[in-house]
């Protein structure tokens, strides 16, 4: 235990949780925003866990090869777009179930990433720079907590922007119509499968970028244990956020903070139940699903096509 932590006393815990929330939440945020777009179009992509890991691998690999982490981010987005479009295309075929395809893509994406990423475990790639928002303070914990990544800031802007776009643009209205009533959308001449394919591909881009954050910023290396189910949890998070991008932001921060609880408690000397506290995000997922779901009613915010297609 460090002297500074002792000096801060128990204040170190909320500070570390805050830092964790800002740091760990970014992949949750990007994946959930991506899934939000996809689900608003009336389709579920469970494969985003695979997309996340693929994005992490692709981002790390390109950053290592080109020396530019930002090119890595682009590559991660492109990998996500390809996986998303493939999911969208397959689900547009007759009698194809999006849940089954999603599970297949989850396994396929992680498997492919491990296979292609084998040579990347050893070398170290240039990482994304941190932005120091803690310039005003001398408290090292606060400085550490406020050292954030540009992607996080992009995500913060993206969430309200997406909400605005869903409400105020032709594109947003089209996605929502397709997600709420496919028959009505068809009668208006929209190509339902095409809209969903594009929405799933766009969701893939965001999930891929979320993956590049994992390998290029925090934890900032490539290995097979990089994602511990963030992609899947983000899908649950969209339900918790009731399909609203801004609520996705708050939910991601909450999940990020929960993920930082174990290490934070450890840093002030509470080591008992370390693994239990590390399981906080998973317990939170379960709790949220139990609390927010009901056997007898559907959420009014839920895109109607999600109910209909099951």
């Amino acid at each position, binding site marked *: 235990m460090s002297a500074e932590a002792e000096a801060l006393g128990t204040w170190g815990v909320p500070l570390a949780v805050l830092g964790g929330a800002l740091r760990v939440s970014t992949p949750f945020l990007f994946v959930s925003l991506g899934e939000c777009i996809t689900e608003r179009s009336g389709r579920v992509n469970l494969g985003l866990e695979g997309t996340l890991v693929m994005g992490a691998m692709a981002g790390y690999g390109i950053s290592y090869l080109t020396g530019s982490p930002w090119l890595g981010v682009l590559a991660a987005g492109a990998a996500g777009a390809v996986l998303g479009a493939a999911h969208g295309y397959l689900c547009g075929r007759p009698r194809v179930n999006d849940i089954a395809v999603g599970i297949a893509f989850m396994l396929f994406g992680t498997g492919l990433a491990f296979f292609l990423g084998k040579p990347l475990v050893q070398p170290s790639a240039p990482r994304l720079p941190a932005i120091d928002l803690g310039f005003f303070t001398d408290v090292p914990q606060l400085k550490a907590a406020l050292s954030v990544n540009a992607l996080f800031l992009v995500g913060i802007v993206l969430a309200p922007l997406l909400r605005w776009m869903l409400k105020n643009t032709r594109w947003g*209205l089209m996605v929502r119509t397709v997600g*709420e009533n496919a028959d009505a959308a068809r009668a208006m001449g929209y190509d339902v499968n095409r809209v969903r394919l594009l929405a799933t591909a766009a969701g893939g881009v965001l999930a891929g970028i979320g993956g590049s954050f994992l390998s290029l910023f925090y934890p900032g290396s490539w290995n097979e244990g990089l994602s511990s189910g963030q992609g899947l949890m983000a899908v649950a998070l969209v339900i918790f956020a009731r399909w609203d991008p801004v609520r996705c932001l708050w939910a991601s921060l909450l999940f990020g903070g929960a993920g930082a609880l174990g290490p934070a408690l450890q840093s002030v000397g509470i080591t008992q139940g370390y693994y239990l506290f590390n399981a906080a995000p998973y317990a939170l997922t379960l709790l949220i699903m139990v609390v927010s779901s009901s056997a007898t009613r559907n959420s009014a915010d839920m895109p109607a096509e999600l109910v209909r297609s099951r």
Partner: protein
Amino acid sequence: MTAAALAYESLDPNQSGFRRRDVPPELAALNITKRFGSLTALEDVSFRLRPGSVHALLGENGAGKSTLVKCILGYYRADSGEVQLGGRTITPKSPREARRHGIGMVFQHFTLVENMTVAENLVLARAELPARIDWAKQHREIEAFMDTTPFRVPVHKPVRKLAAGEKQKLEIIKQLYLGSRIVILDEPSSVLTPDEADEVLGLLREMAHAGAVSVVLITHKFREVQQFADDVTVLRRGTLAGTGTTAELDAQRLAEMMVGAELPSTAVARVERAAGDTLLEVENLRANDDLGAPILRDVSFSVRAGEIVGIAGVSGNGQDELVEVLAGQRAASGGSVRVRGCEYRASRAELHTHGVRLLPEAPLANACIAEMSVAENIGLRSFDRAPFSWLGFLKKGAIRKRARSLVREFKVRTPSVDTPIGALSGGNVQRAVLSRELTGNVTLLIAANPCFGLDFAATSDIRQRILNARNEGAAVLLVSADLEEIFALSDRILVMSEGRIVHAVDIAEANLAEIGRHMAGHGSDPPSAP
């Protein structure tokens, strides 16, 4: 302002005047024939819509009314004949193309997006949308447009919160907003109360007579034809049975045209009998809809042996949910149901021991497994009991033999008992379900819209069988959106509105106007307190 909005010129807002310098073009369908495989749905039917008039298309279910308008709208391609608009032949290949010619249809099943607002629904129906939508401007334009029509719906409200009448108005506004000069209405009164239907049709007729639109009204109700239409065309079994102005055709004449010479009667033989013991008691029953909002609010009533209790009401006032609770498809949130004095929760064992039988609405979806054979579907109530099963093994021979005899007895028309039931026509599916539900000891029969969508013959057959069950001492609960059916069958009538029983009356004292008032929620007496 949109082009459509400019199309109507308000003369005097106080008189809700709307007049265009030009009237809508004349629409004519000439010698239309349409076949589906070996079935001729329409044969050599012609029909002419005078500009600025309301023209009723009258006929039974399956007479070809919707086939005709679908040929005009481009859903179907007619095998022969042509559609003319203003004297020029048009061949729309899709409803979108028909809309470009100014022809639009308002469907029975609303094509609105429930989770979006009124304004969003109107805007997204437009062919061209700007990339960025300025909602403040759109709201202003839409309100200004509504001022040019006699219809008004709150623009900010989500559609799911609108009443059925408002949705129908919104559908009509949508057609006008998109620039339709010819509006086709598909059985509007099937989803509206009589008052709502009168209001909507009255306003549309006003618009038509002002020369703003021409209206085609698809219906099977004489009252609507005589009250709102200028001309009427009657179809019978896919052929033209007659046409003329409503002034020269009375109800008697229309009925003869509609059903032909045979005039099959849907009147059924009723035996006068005193009602017996109370078999079904529902007390303070409460239930929620799929979004968790209360839909049944303290419903109490009882049904005795040998009586038919009819529940009337506009669809969506809790009738479906009541039947679902009694059928075990929906959990009650309060209150109790007793059958023959015993607590009843619609378990399979209770259904069996108390002889509770169900005829749910849309039987193919709610009472059948479409992919399974007629024999298997008929055996669904008894396949796990002797003599149809032995030590858990099914005795297929016995199941099929029984099915064959029931198919004969109930006149189910099917190629064989091994045909998947989904391949049968609606009337025959309903007969097969009846044969299952009305065989054996029937104590309580619950029927929901049992004749919906069936032709005269099937309707009178099925009504007679329901009445026979009552004559033999069963208690019958009949839930129907068709008032004529309620009046034809019931011994007692209850009216349901907003999840409550708001009116109860014996058939002898029942009065159509009063029941209509209660259905609309304007009853004279306060909602029944438990």
